[in-house]
């Protein structure tokens, strides 16, 4: 929860033995909003101050006399005021109301005032924060080639994306710490995830156009939720503007993959969102006629161009008291990938041996809709309430073709030379999130600020009728095709749905006072959240009706295939993916901050109590499948920021954080598979970590920045998936593994030279975790070889040792031109942990190049181009010994369009 102090009044009651001090607030003369990082200088003296996040400044120890106080702020006319400091005065107050500079206002986005969406504001937030934080502004997002919040996040130093096989980048890895350890927030509030596996909301569900900024907090303060070991990513949606704002954007584009391949699609309209059990009643006996076949009829056509658009309108009414903003964004894109996978097993000499060659084509159409509405009402100068509602909906339809050739045996040299099984799958996935917050902030007395919020959120993820058609080609034992006949194996239909509901309440109280001219701020508060999750899955397998020789029939068409549901009532009560989970979190904190000389200190402690329960809804086997958890954590933290002059800062932070296991990992289930069983682990403990950060920051001016930092983390009970040999039937499950460490170095540079800008960051990360890995031991002559375990020390999953971003910017205000060329480098990292010693899957070095351009046309229009993945970089996995595992290619993406902006 994060509410900025709108007002801050300093107590004047303390008595000073030293000179007088002057203090005050700098406001925008028109909107009465406070201005952050304005320079306040006493002319012809060395006394000066910079306003803080509340627009406050303070200059101490003044000798009585006559001065000129000068306030400067980018985008505003400089204000100069004559003041007299009489003798025997402790404190004087001078507020400033600056007038916007009309000349500069025309280029408001580039060099204007500290618009909330501007880079300057982003730098000021970073600079004035009491903890370690990085911010990407809306302006940067607007100029960048990025379409989703997750793509934006990866521009932040130390942030990489967990690039999944089909090209979706849902979650962020912060400084080598994988997504499970990082929380994601929207408007500072944790909202539930539509993802059936992850606790946190996937960032790729948020269209970038709705964002005001992305904040990546790398050191948590007590007022922040404690489950951010790697950090916290906060997507802040656009706020109601100061005056009428109308913005629109329309764009189109194409993907190189769609130029090169006809797009494969299927009939989505025929899909039923309910399975036969839900449609016709429990235990309904289905027949083949109950199942859709149209979603297994795949057609090729030239893909439609992409369409992206957004529209924002906002204004303030009733003497600027009521602010309203509505922002809608929609992105309809088509993309695809081709991949080849080498499936293998580890032989008794601990070497990989290929078993299958898998070729895959994926065609993905996604529609991403986001609606952001904010209303705020300033009742009076002491009271403000606001209401936010955000609705996000991503629907994806995916056609997948997969051909798997079994490579065991002689004469099997590549795809198509062995037993070939073919799977064609259609899948639509709809994820939606809705979150409504009612918030208020009240100045109770002149220096006590209370804020509260009530939040209701729900998230649903739905995969209705995922259909899969499995056929195969026969082959001779020695390799080679027996004939060209294709036989029908099975047709599968799966319905999956998960629903999360959260009710949260937050309240904070802040009290500010000063003792001997030292400003103290004490803040306390808490949150209570109750969550309910329900997961549902139902599978149907249709088997072919055997032909006269009791064999599978030759396959001709999915429309005419004669099949029957093998388990005609499905398995809704018995599917191990059916579970419910409840979680209640109660948290409280207290923190205090003050300035000692140039040292800003913030410290405090947070208490979080977690109460969880879950229930496996499988009723097939008698016994208890229900588990309860209760644990509490004390999470202390301290943050020091030492200002050297106005331009430099050194920060030191230490904090404790936790990561709770994902809900489904705790579920008491076992799935018996052909080669191994998979189970949850109800005994999993939550992870805890101590985190340390040291950072040097240099702000030569409002836009430029240089930062260098080091960090160290020590994580107890990290959670990893592992394989237990278990004597015969191996078991894959989740376990806690000792202690992991993670340290590294971060560099950030943003520098503008006239029309050119350079923005870069580099992160070195070195993490280490040790877990037992399977290794076969030869026993020499006795022949009793055994399965053994060796503790293997390795980096944590997802960690790249080297991560770098470099953007070259060109801006020409006169011509209204902005260009950006962005490189992204992500070094070798473990994409998948192998269960075997020395066989982890490494994602090879990845270099991405993208380009974007903005050109102002006339008064209101901007033409834009966004080109991404220009190098068509493959996503390639290999084992430590460079044995080929998998390679995906996606193709370049091109987008162009027109933006409209009207601001009164």
């Amino acid at each position, binding site marked *: 929860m994060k509410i900025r102090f709108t007002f801050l009044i300093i107590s004047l009651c303390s008595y000073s033995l030293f000179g007088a001090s002057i203090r005050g607030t700098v406001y925008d003369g028109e909107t009465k909003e406070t201005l952050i990082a304005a320079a306040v200088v006493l002319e012809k003296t060395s006394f000066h101050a910079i306003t803080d996040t509340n627009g406050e400044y303070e200059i101490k120890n003044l000798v009585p006399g006559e001065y000129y106080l000068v306030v400067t702020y980018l985008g505003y006319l400089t204000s100069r005021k004559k003041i007299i400091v009489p003798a025997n005065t402790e404190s004087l107050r001078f507020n400033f109301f600056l007038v916007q500079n009309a000349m500069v206002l025309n280029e408001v986005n580039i060099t204007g005032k500290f618009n909330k969406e501007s880079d300057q504001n982003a730098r000021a937030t970073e600079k004035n924060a009491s903890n370690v934080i990085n911010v990407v502004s809306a302006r940067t997002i607007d100029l960048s080639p990025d379409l989703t919040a997750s793509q934006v996040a990866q521009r932040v130093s130390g942030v990489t994306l967990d690039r999944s096989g089909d090209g979706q980048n849902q979650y962020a890895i912060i400084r080598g710490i994988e997504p499970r350890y990082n929380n994601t927030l929207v408007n500072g509030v944790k909202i539930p995830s539509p993802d059936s596996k992850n606790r946190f909301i996937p960032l790729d569900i948020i269209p970038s156009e709705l964002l005001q900024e992305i904040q990546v907090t790398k050191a948590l303060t007590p007022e922040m939720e404690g489950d951010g070991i790697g950090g916290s990513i906060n997507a802040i949606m656009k706020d109601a503007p100061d005056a009428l704002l109308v913005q629109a954007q329309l764009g189109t584009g194409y993907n190189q993959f769609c130029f090169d391949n006809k797009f494969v699609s299927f009939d989505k309209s025929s899909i039923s969102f309910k399975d036969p059990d839900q449609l016709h009643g429990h235990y309904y006996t289905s027949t083949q006629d109950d199942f859709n076949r149209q979603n297994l009829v795949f057609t090729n056509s030239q893909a439609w161009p992409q369409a992206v658009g957004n529209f924002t309108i906002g204004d303030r009414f009733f003497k600027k008291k009521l602010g309203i903003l509505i922002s809608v964004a929609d992105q309809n894109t088509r993309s695809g990938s081709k991949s080849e996978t080498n499936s293998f097993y580890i032989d008794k000499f601990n070497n990989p041996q290929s078993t299958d060659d898998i070729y895959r084509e994926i065609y993905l159409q996604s529609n991403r809709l986001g609606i952001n509405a904010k209303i705020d009402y300033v009742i009076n100068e002491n009271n403000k309430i606001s209401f936010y509602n955000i609705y996000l909906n991503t629907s994806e339809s995916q056609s997948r073709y997969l051909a798997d050739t079994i490579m065991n045996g002689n004469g099997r040299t590549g795809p198509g030379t062995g037993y070939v099984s073919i799977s064609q799958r259609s899948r639509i996935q709809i994820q939606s999130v809705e979150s409504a917050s009612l918030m208020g902030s009240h100045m109770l007395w002149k220096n006590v600020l209370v804020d509260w919020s009530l939040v209701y959120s729900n998230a649903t993820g739905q995969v209705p009728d995922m259909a899969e058609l499995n056929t195969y080609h026969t082959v001779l034992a020695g390799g080679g095709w027996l004939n060209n006949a294709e036989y029908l194996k099975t047709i599968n239909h799966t319905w999956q749905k998960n629903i999360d509901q959260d009710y949260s309440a937050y309240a904070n109280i802040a009290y500010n006072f000063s003792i001997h001219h030292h400003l103290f701020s004490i803040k306390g508060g808490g949150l209570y959240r109750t969550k309910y999750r329900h997961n549902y899955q139902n599978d149907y397998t249709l088997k072919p009706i055997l032909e006269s*020789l009791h064999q599978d029939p030759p396959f001709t068409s999915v429309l005419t295939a004669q099949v029957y549901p093998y388990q005609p009532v499905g398995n809704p009560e018995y599917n191990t993916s059916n579970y419910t989970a409840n979680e209640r979190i109660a948290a409280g904190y207290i923190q205090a901050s003050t300035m000692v000389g140039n040292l800003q200190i913030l410290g405090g402690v947070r208490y979080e109590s977690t109460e969880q329960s879950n229930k496996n809804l499988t009723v097939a086997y008698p016994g208890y499948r229900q588990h309860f958890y209760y644990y509490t954590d004390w999470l202390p933290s301290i943050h020091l920021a030492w200002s050297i002059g106005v331009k430099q800062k050194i920060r030191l932070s230490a904090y404790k954080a936790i990561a709770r296991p994902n809900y489904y990992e705790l579920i008491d289930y076992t799935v018996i598979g052909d080669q191994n069983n998979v189970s949850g682990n109800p005994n999993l403990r939550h992870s805890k970590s101590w985190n340390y950060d040291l950072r040097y920051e240099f702000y030569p001016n409002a836009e430029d920045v240089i930062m260098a930092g080091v960090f160290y983390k020590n994580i107890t009970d990290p959670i990893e998936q592992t394989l237990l040999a278990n004597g015969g039937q191996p078991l894959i499950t989740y376990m806690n593994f000792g202690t992991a460490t993670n340290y590294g170095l971060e560099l950030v540079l943003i520098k503008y030279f006239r029309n050119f800008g350079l923005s870069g960051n580099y992160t070195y990360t070195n993490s280490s975790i040790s877990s037992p890995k399977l290794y076969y031991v030869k026993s020499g002559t006795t022949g009793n070889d055994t399965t053994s375990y060796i503790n293997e020390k390795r980096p944590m999953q997802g960690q790249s040792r080297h991560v770098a971003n470099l953007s070259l910017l060109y801006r020409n205000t006169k011509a209204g031109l902005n260009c950006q060329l962005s490189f992204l480098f992500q070094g070798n990292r473990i994409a998948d942990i192998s269960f075997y010693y020395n066989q982890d899957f490494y994602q090879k070095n990845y270099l991405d190049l993208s380009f974007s351009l903005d050109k102002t046309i006339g008064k209101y229009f901007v033409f834009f181009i966004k080109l991404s993945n220009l190098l068509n970089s493959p996503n390639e996995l290999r084992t430590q010994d460079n044995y080929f595992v998998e390679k995906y290619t996606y193709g370049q993406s091109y987008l162009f369009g027109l933006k409209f902006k009207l601001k009164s």
Partner: protein
Amino acid sequence: MKKSYIKINFYRQAYSLFSALLLIALATVQVSCKKSSNVDTTVPVSNPITKDSVSGFLKGTMLANKTYYLKGDIYVKSTDTLAIQPGVTVIVLGNPDAAPPLIYTIHISGTLLAEGTKASQITFKPSASNPVWPKGYWGGIQCDSMAKVVHLIWANISYTGGPDVSGGAQFAFSVVGVAPSSSNGNFTSTTKVVIENCSFVSGIDDCLRLMGPITVSIKGNVIQHQGSDDGDNINIKNGVTGDVAFNYIWSAANNSIKVNTNKTVLYPQSKINIYNNTMIAGGWRKQGEPTAGILVDVFAQASVFNNLIINCVNGLRITAQSDTSAIKGKYGYNLFYSTVDSTRAGYYPAGDWGKPQAGDLLSTGLNNNNPKLVNLDTDVHAMTDQNNPHLQAGSAAIGKANQQAPYTAGIGTLMLPGKDIGAYQSDGSGNQR
């Protein structure tokens, strides 16, 4: 291959608890094994089960010659024993056509002692008066990782393979033996499985599926028409040791006998002696894969002697993925015969590691190396078994076996390798069904 979802909760606390119980049970195992090799297979009456209908948790003894009606799933807990005396008939109620289908299964987590005699056999069958294949009527007998002793002797099991609640076909009889996790890889075999002189008819998927570090004696059984479009009939996986001998397998959907080690974890390794089995018309319903009478695959060790393989799609497949160094020299004296011309090339399919061995008899035509069964049905797609697999005088199989073939002593009935190839010996020994 099917995935079936279950029921058992494996977490570690349970393991430590059960490993203690397993130790106690070990003692029981020793006692029972000795008993089974005795001629007298009378099961003592302790805790007699007197009611006619059974369901839910069950323990005690089903009484000789009594008929029981199974009207729900049966669970035998890990600390309990279900004993079944000779002559017991278990009629499994249920109806695969009902909504929801009523498919009942016998789940064994403890000890099963179903010990009939030739004269007084035990029968498990569905209540349906006229069952039709391929339709699963009940769920068979499923022994989980906690089962310790499983004896199935002189029993008849028919029309299994009904789906479990997750929708997967159930095997006629399966044992999933899992030893407690071991840090040094030496998994102790604790479960003993004796399946002898039984009859299995018309199931949907695998007939016998045995997994994990268990010891087995699978001898003298008759398996007919198991598996619909897939299903290995004796499917050995993941560290099973013991013998498969003197079985008669007719019309298996996929491989008649298959031995594998788990590809994910290679040790413990499956080590099986396969001798004196007869298999006819196997592998015709499973398409796409080179099915075989006997398949020795992924890192399995096996000895394969004295088997009679007739009219199977392929004969003996020992793949390059098997533990070939351990198999080398441990197979031979098998007789391959075919009335289907196209299959003669597949006795040892090209591309596999296995090659014809000393003592092997590979028939090249109808009158070459003819095993001369009393009756051989040449229709490999027949629905009913018209064969009489006993040998006539003058059979090429007589006296051609290797009596020095490896076998395992100490579990089940000791049946030494015969002098004739196949399950039925000309002197009347061998398979007694």
